[in-house]
């Protein structure tokens, strides 16, 4: 076996490595990054030095070449001032009846976050506070990390520092959603990193919303990672709204561990960023669990969005459902990669994955790679993928009733993505999602 020859590092990679190095050195001068976070950061720097930014030669990043796309590395975001916090609060998406915790360019804005409004039984602790108090939950950080090197996650781990530890006590049904609003308001490009750990206790229930917005036209780099532990019998609904500014880079990683009879229902709406990647790592640790990961991606201009999932059925009797809808106009580029692994002992696994895409322009591109890797025989697994454009006959029918072409298209696209959105159980959230999509569609139709 030959070791692949690594080409020389790009300026962006050099800048990232240097920034990481400097950050660790400063920390060392101050007595080092505390315990676990320090170790993780140092390991991540090592790994980054060895592998660099993921590129198309790395199978998992075949269609999203960060090495080619990321040309520079802007300075790290500083602590937000009151003006920035106010601007961020205005830019953040509004989710009705939710307790909103605000992150400004990656950093937690304590003053603008509604800690007091958190539902009973739910607590949120800033990462630095958790570190200071030696919170045992810190051990969770990095525990759900995949074995294989993931360049986006490595960066997030390298710059560990900002973030939250959210816990839901066992048996608690959180009375309202918790909204983590991530905003990049800065006038100049910065890089921001956030790590969130969410631990939902046995039998608890939580609805969590993550939204990502930012200034249009600013080439900021947002990198978020969440480690979500859904305890035995717990239920979590997670809704992600990615509407970053049109020049932004968005790297998101969701790592999930599901306990026995746990239920997780994820919906991800992607409309923003110049380039975005959302990686989902799901691991089943107990039987009888149910995982649904669904989403809709709507792209225009030269946007590029990649959704990649790795669902690992390690134990028997679990169910997973993935459904992704991608709508591509102009010169946009959509990527869906999904891998379902069913290990030897994961008998009676029921896994279904579907990726459907609509190409609205001859200059758009969709790449699909749905994979099955199956080692257990008593399973029902399937995946499907389709690429196509709007149905001519349907369009004509609608137009013959008087709907202008654009509106007929809008209606059909809405129906297309609607098949995924309808799995969002919370009606108010579903309305929010639909409203965002309608806004996108109306903008397109205009």
């Amino acid at each position: 076996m030959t070791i692949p020859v690594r080409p020389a590092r790009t300026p962006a990679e050099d800048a990232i490595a240097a920034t990481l190095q400097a950050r660790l050195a400063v920390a060392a001068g101050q007595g080092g990054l505390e315990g676990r976070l320090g170790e993780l950061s140092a390991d991540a720097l090592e790994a980054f030095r060895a592998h660099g930014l993921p590129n198309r030669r790395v199978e998992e990043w075949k269609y999203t070449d960060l090495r080619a796309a990321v040309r520079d590395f802007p300075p790290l975001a500083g602590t937000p001032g009151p003006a920035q916090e106010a601007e961020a609060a205005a830019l953040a998406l509004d989710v009705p009846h939710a307790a909103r915790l605000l992150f400004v360019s990656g950093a937690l804005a304590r003053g603008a976050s509604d800690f007091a409004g958190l539902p009973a039984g739910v607590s949120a602790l800033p990462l630095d506070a958790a570190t200071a108090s030696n919170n045992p939950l810190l051990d969770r950080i990095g525990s759900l990390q995949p074995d294989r090197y993931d360049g986006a996650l490595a960066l997030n781990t390298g710059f560990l520092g900002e973030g939250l530890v959210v816990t839901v006590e066992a048996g608690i049904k959180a009375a309202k959603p918790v909204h983590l609003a991530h905003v990049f308001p800065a006038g100049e490009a910065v890089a921001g990193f956030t790590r969130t750990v969410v631990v939902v206790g046995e039998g608890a229930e939580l609805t969590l919303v993550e939204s990502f917005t930012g200034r249009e036209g600013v080439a900021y780099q947002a990198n978020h990672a969440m480690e979500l532990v859904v305890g035995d019998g717990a239920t979590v609904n997670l809704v992600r709204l990615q509407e970053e500014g049109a020049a932004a880079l968005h790297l998101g990683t969701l790592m999930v561990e599901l306990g026995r009879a746990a239920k997780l229902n994820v919906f991800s709406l992607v409309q923003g960023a110049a380039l975005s990647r959302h990686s989902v790592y799901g691991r089943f640790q107990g039987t009888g669990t149910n995982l649904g990961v669904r989403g809709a991606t709507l792209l225009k201009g030269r946007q590029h969005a990649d959704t990649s999932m790795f669902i690992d059925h390690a134990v028997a009797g679990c169910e997973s459902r993935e459904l992704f809808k991608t709508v591509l106009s102009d010169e946009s580029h959509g990527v869906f990669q999904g891998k379902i692994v069913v290990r030897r002992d994961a008998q009676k696994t029921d896994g279904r994955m579907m990726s459907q895409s609509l190409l609205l322009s001859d200059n758009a591109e969709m790449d699909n790679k749905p994979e099955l890797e199956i080692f257990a025989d008593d399973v029902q697994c399937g995946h499907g993928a389709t690429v196509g454009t709007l149905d001519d006959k349907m369009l004509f029918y609608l137009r013959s009733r008087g709907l202008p072409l654009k509106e007929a298209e809008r209606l059909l696209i809405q129906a297309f993505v609607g098949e995924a959105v309808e799995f969002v159980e919370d009606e108010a959230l579903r309305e929010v999602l639909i409203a965002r999509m309608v806004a996108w569609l109306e903008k397109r139709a205009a």
Partner: protein
Amino acid sequence: MRQRHGVDARHKAGHDGFQNDAGLGPAALTFPPGPAVAHQRTPHMLEIKNLHARIGDNEILKGLDLTIPAGEVHAIMGPNGSGKSTLSYVLSGKPDYEVTEGTATFNGQDILALAPEERAAAGVFLAFQYPIEIPGVANMQFLRAAMNAQKKARGEEEISTPDFLKLVRAKAPDLGITQDMLRRGVNVGFSGGEKKRNEILQMALLEPKLCILDETDSGLDIDALKVVAQGVNALRAPDRAMLVITHYQRLLDHIVPDVVHVMHKGRIVRSGGAELALELEESGYAAYGQDAA
């Protein structure tokens, strides 16, 4: 060349009912005797002259002439493959159909130049032979979107939700359209009869000027046929014209036409009163190289 088709058909059949045809241009065929004469003074709502249309390399309409004044119901009958459905698609603007020659005006306006939705807004409605299913678009949502799009195009005010609901509630029950059917995706899971009734409901709500019914009777049992026919008859009005395309005379028992046209090989080859339909029922289309059965 074009005229020869009809002449050939006549000679082959040895039928003497084609006196109108012999030696006369197609234009001479469009004003047959009958009730239409009474309306001759009414401005012609639809006026088609020498229409040629093809799909791909296949020419289907080969010089069709047809004039329908407001207030009249015209039926077009003809054997399979004579181009009846093509005429409905060409009038409603289905892509893939290319008009190569001729004109079609609707209230004086060249409709062939318009997009399908512009024709709809102008008042052209096609009740499809095979209404398509559109999963994910709720019937109600669709009806309202269509209504408002047309109103908007005409510069009228959009209908409010309560008014719209009231309107639907007033019209749907007569056609046997249930709440469930209104909630479901457009035509999704509808039976053949339900789809046709849904078409008529749309017609009733959109109040078009020209209603083209393409084989609306196909696939309907007699009870369903009556419901549909009642729905259509309720819409007969002095300012509205109807073009009823059918293969069988059966539908015309329930929707009595003012004029019946026979279409063959892409042209109108004969026109007459309602009695022509009965005559065809008896003699069949054998004269046109095909049985009615």
